[in-house]
């Protein structure tokens, strides 16, 4: 019985090995692959208007968080009840809110807490996801079984309910303490998706020839994981975390809106939206301005992450 498709296939492999028949040093092969993938992705991204739009938005918002003074001269905490719900004027372009604070200035300064919580949560999530994903994917067997079960359980917990329960435990009203509490809660509940992505990329990387080669050369587990496998898992993890950053900002605003996230004197969009909502019949701008800021920020990060992911994985589109 002849099967010349297999003959052709083995010929094919021979051809792929290149003219000299030298497979090249293991590390080079891996890096070349990553580089060309990133190159393709970059070519895709450069032509994607959504990518540029979201990048522009992210830049503006980050700038706002770092140097809010560039965008508004007014102090957001300078509130006078005599200016309650006053309309727009030369000094306050969106007028004043129910407390008599500058609406625009509060929205600008509100970016600080939002971005800080979003970035720190994404960072902490990344660390947890990398550690768990690496261990789970690299060691397999019972380690993987236990950690995968853990991921399933955490995924099964309704996020908002769990956050409510966890945050009710935090009695302190200290600004920094609350920020870290929110970061901690979001990270503890939000690491699962990223961990799954890392795990599957680790499993793929583990099967690569250069990892087998490193192992044969006597490299230890730690060295293999850090030098050879970790770099492969970083790109997909970063993409997931960019999208997650947007969701974390939304989640923080939701918790602050409910009154269990950030509290005054920290300025947060979630709280301001809640106050604006209650007084919307008197004046709508104090609701509309922080709402617009929050929606644009969340959208910007989600669109940015979406665009990068599509570029790296065109199949998904």
């Amino acid at each position, binding site marked *: 019985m002849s099967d010349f498709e297999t003959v052709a296939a083995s010929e094919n492999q021979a051809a792929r090995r290149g003219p000299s028949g030298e497979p090249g040093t293991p590390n080079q092969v891996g890096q070349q692959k990553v580089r060309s993938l990133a190159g393709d992705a970059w070519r895709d991204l450069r032509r994607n208007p959504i990518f540029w739009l979201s990048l522009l938005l992210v830049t503006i918002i980050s700038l706002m968080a770092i140097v809010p003074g560039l965008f508004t001269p007014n102090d957001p905490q300078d509130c006078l009840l005599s200016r309650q719900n006053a309309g727009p004027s030369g000094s306050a372009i969106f007028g004043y809110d129910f407390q008599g604070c500058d609406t625009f200035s509060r929205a600008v300064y509100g970016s600080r807490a939002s971005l800080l919580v979003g970035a720190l949560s994404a960072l902490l999530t990344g660390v947890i996801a990398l550690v768990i994903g690496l261990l789970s994917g690299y060691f397999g067997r019972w380690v993987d079984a236990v950690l995968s079960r853990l991921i399933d359980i955490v995924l099964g917990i309704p996020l908002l309910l769990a956050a409510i329960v966890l945050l009710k*435990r935090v009695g302190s009203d200290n600004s920094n303490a609350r920020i870290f509490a929110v970061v901690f809660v979001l990270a503890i509940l939000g690491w699962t998706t990223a961990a799954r992505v890392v795990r599957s990329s680790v499993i793929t990387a583990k099967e690569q020839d250069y990892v087998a080669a490193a192992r044969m050369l006597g490299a230890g587990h730690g060295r293999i994981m850090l030098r050879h496998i970790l770099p492969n898992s970083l790109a997909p993890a970063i993409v997931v975390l960019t999208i997650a950053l947007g969701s974390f900002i939304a989640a923080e605003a939701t918790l602050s809106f409910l009154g269990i996230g950030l509290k005054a004197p920290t300025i947060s969009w979630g709280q301001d939206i809640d106050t604006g909502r209650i007084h919307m019949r008197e004046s709508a701008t104090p609701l509309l301005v922080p*709402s617009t800021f929050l929606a644009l920020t969340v*959208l910007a990060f989600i669109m940015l992450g979406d665009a990068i992911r599509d570029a790296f994985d065109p199949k998904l589109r």
Partner: protein
Amino acid sequence: MFRYILRRLLQMVLAFLGTTLIVYALMFAGQGDPIQALAGERPVTEAQRAYLTEKYHLDATGIGGFFYRYFDYVRSLLQGDLGQSLTGRQIGDILQQAWPVTVKLALIALAVAVIFGVTAGVIAGIRRAGIFDNSTLVLTLLVLGIPTIVLAPLAQYFLGVKWQLFPPTAGAEPNFYALLLPGIVLGSLSLATALRLTRTSVAENLRADYVRTARSKGLVKRRIVSVHVLRNSLIPVVTFLGVELGNLMSGAIITEGVFNIPGVGFNLFRGIRTEDGPLVVGIVSVLVVVYLVSNLLVDVLYAVLDPRIRYE
């Protein structure tokens, strides 16, 4: 099929014990006065203190005491005894009044997601990369990117207060019309996800080998799409919608809070606002159970829809 359900049931029991243990431990364990933790910053009267001590067996101490109290809590939870809120009302009674409203709202939201999301998803999947497909992609991205705490108040302001197309708040005994706007707001997120899921699923199934077989059998195109492709494409969509119904029932906190709908989420919203610890613990425990049971039902539904799972 039976073994499959049994396995899922066991998993659910484990998840139930795990989650309630976490909820319970977080609310009661640790340092400090557990009663004050329940009541937040409100002053606690002697009568309340005595009631809470007895209700949660706070006089038992140590790890043993903790588990004793935990199992007691689980037992009363299973018996439907949720205790009293700090305002003195039975939490069971509060929930009994709230459920019908929440279920009605969730069903409206689900209907919105099914009618618009699935239909548009099927069209987008068939006409992939067309104008319709691309515009739904952008629109769903917008919906997915706008948090409920923005969407709900804005809908309330523009459609309810400014243009007065809908009643801005629902009130004590909401009718269908009063629940329509909140239902649409609540359902918009599910709509966007359902649309994207349906689109991907339909597009993928249209390329499946069995479609080629159906064509070679000489079936008309409409039948190939509406019977062969749709039946396969809707498996993940129906599964998603099942999970989503559980989410909608337990996750309508913001929407019910904003529109003043006296459902479960609204009571939780109020419980958080008024620092009513027992009310929050009671409602959260019940919602966790609802969430877990709906997940189980979805797994069973999945097995019914997909014969490959059924005979695993």
